[in-house]
């Protein structure tokens, strides 16, 4: 599981990094999305990988901490998803506005001569 997850994060971040460096604004936004997926998985994995363990404790009774997984990274990743989703959506609007103003989808607003 560790190997698959770390390979997944690595591939997402690597392809995201490559795409962010590209000159087309659409490639940049896809790259940003992939990067944020990779980062979200990374945050998630920082709570240690467990299967079949819930992050929510019961209200009463004996609590065995080893039977549960760390809830904080899950809360963090939820916040991070919402924020990066919202800002990426905003970037999409700016991207379209830039396309409208300059007539090209190059990130610098003009084609390289």
């Amino acid at each position, binding site marked *: 599981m560790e190997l698959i997850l770390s390979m997944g994060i690595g591939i997402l971040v690597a392809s995201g990094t490559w795409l962010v460096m590209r000159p087309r604004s659409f490639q940049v936004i896809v790259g*940003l999305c992939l*990067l944020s997926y990779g980062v979200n998985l990374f945050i998630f994995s920082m709570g240690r990988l467990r299967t079949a363990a819930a992050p929510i404790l019961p209200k009463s009774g004996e609590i065995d901490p080893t039977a549960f997984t760390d809830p904080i990274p899950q809360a963090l990743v939820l916040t991070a998803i919402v924020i990066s989703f919202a800002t990426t959506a905003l*970037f999409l609007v700016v991207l379209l*506005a830039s396309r409208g*103003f300059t007539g090209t989808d190059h*990130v610098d607003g003009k084609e390289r001569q």
Partner: protein
Amino acid sequence: MNGIEALMPGGALTPQHMMIAPILIPLIAAAIMLFYEDRQRKAKMAISLIASVMMLLVAFDLLNRSKGAGPSGGNEIGLYLLGDWPTPFGINLVLDRLSALMLVLASILSIPSLIFASATWQGRGQHFHSLFMFMMMGVNGAFLTGDLFNLFVFFEIMLAASYGLMLHGSGAARVRSGMHYIAINLVASLFFLIGVATIYGVVGTLNMADLAQRMPYIAASDRPLVHAGLAILGLAFLVKAGMWPLCFWLPPTYQAASAPVAAMFAILTKVGVYIILRLTFLTFAPGTGPSAGFGAGVLIAGGMATLAYGTVGILGSQAMSRMAGFSVLISSGTLLTVVGLAMGGGGVAMLAGALYYMIGSTIAIAGLFLLVELVERGQGSVAAMLALTSDLYGGPDDDPEEPEGSGFVIPGVMTILGVCFAALAVLLAGMPPLSGFLGKVMILSGMLQGTGSGPVEWAFMALLILSGLATLIALVRVGIQTFWAAADDVAPKVKASEIAPIAALILATVLLTWQARPAMRYMEATAAALHEPTVYINGVIMAERTVERQEQAETAPTPAPEPERERLGPPAPPMGAPAGEVQQ
């Protein structure tokens, strides 16, 4: 904890709700303004101005509180537990001298920017005031929070609002540089998240004070990972602060942004500097175990490279607005280098000088951005951009609701603008008599007293003086072109409400110069407090929850008021009056 609370029995049992006011005031103001139609600019202006004045008053009150009394080393830590959760688990707001100082600086900048915007800019796009207030909320929250992930949230609030403000007024140039600005900040935010997650994964805490407390006890095998996490985290703030080579986005973005927005963006780079200062001194403070001084070399080298880049850039710029952008970099570079030197044991005096310099230079940069727009109004590129935005949104000329009172055009515009420009040039170049000079002298003298004079110190001294010279040459050159050589140009139409904010900002720096001694004493105590992170850590870790304090009060029949926590007597205006410091 102020005079009124101390007089009320049981007043000490309630938490200091004043501490959260700098976050709540702009939040509520921004939310209320969303209900107004965008044409009702007068009402929106009134609401945001009232909110800004309230923020300024609250900031001064908090500054006054943070000065504290003897036992805390003159650095009273205010703590606000959200939801009254115990310290390392809940999110907390922490107030100390440094954060109070930054709150004051942010509100000092916001009022002139708003008044300037009231003349024309508020009508050139939608939701200007709401975005402005949301950005203030993010900035204030970033200064106050004591939790890394909460810092991320406030940082994102600030950035999201700043994306909107950056695009305010629209136009091809703004959208293009706005796209770069958003892209680079999105990537920086991802670095922030990676850093925070790594730190949590290794240390198991997100509370800054708790992290600082655990730093000396981290296992040697885990230490490189924590360093990596903190370094990646630092990248996000160095992008914001504009350290070379992470700063190429900054001059074009600030140049393209509308004047009041660019003036307010001057504080955003300082948010980056503030967090660098806060985190490095908490986690890597001199004399705190094996991690002490980590990253100092990077800050020194990067800061000096920024300084050099800004110096070359300001000499190579043609447009005044671009010069203003590079002067932001010079200011950041100076501060980052000083932080690095202070981390390596540069001493309190130098850091105090840097804090003093930061206040003056931030105000001066904001003033320059406002002034530049007025001067360039009659000239090419910006005029074209203005014409374009007027077409899109309907200019103020055909807007019946435009306030007429502030609309009269003052005579002798170029003379007044010229005088303001000269004052700002003197401030930024660090010439006597204004605060820029004092700040630089105090940095340099503090450095020579503190670390002595190695090659790094001499290089920094040379760079600092050269950057001042370059600023002077560049600004004088463009000033001669604008104010003397082009006498036949039509003077720009400038309203009184556009000159007044610039004059007010210059007046603030004059006040800072005139009252340099009490201001400097505050900075020295702040710098000394930064060198004593245990005060901050104890202030956060040892603090009791409100529930616990109430329980104690119930068990003990006569709750003895802690004498050192009472601060009676008239609240003194913080920087203006020497009395505030003498009382201690």
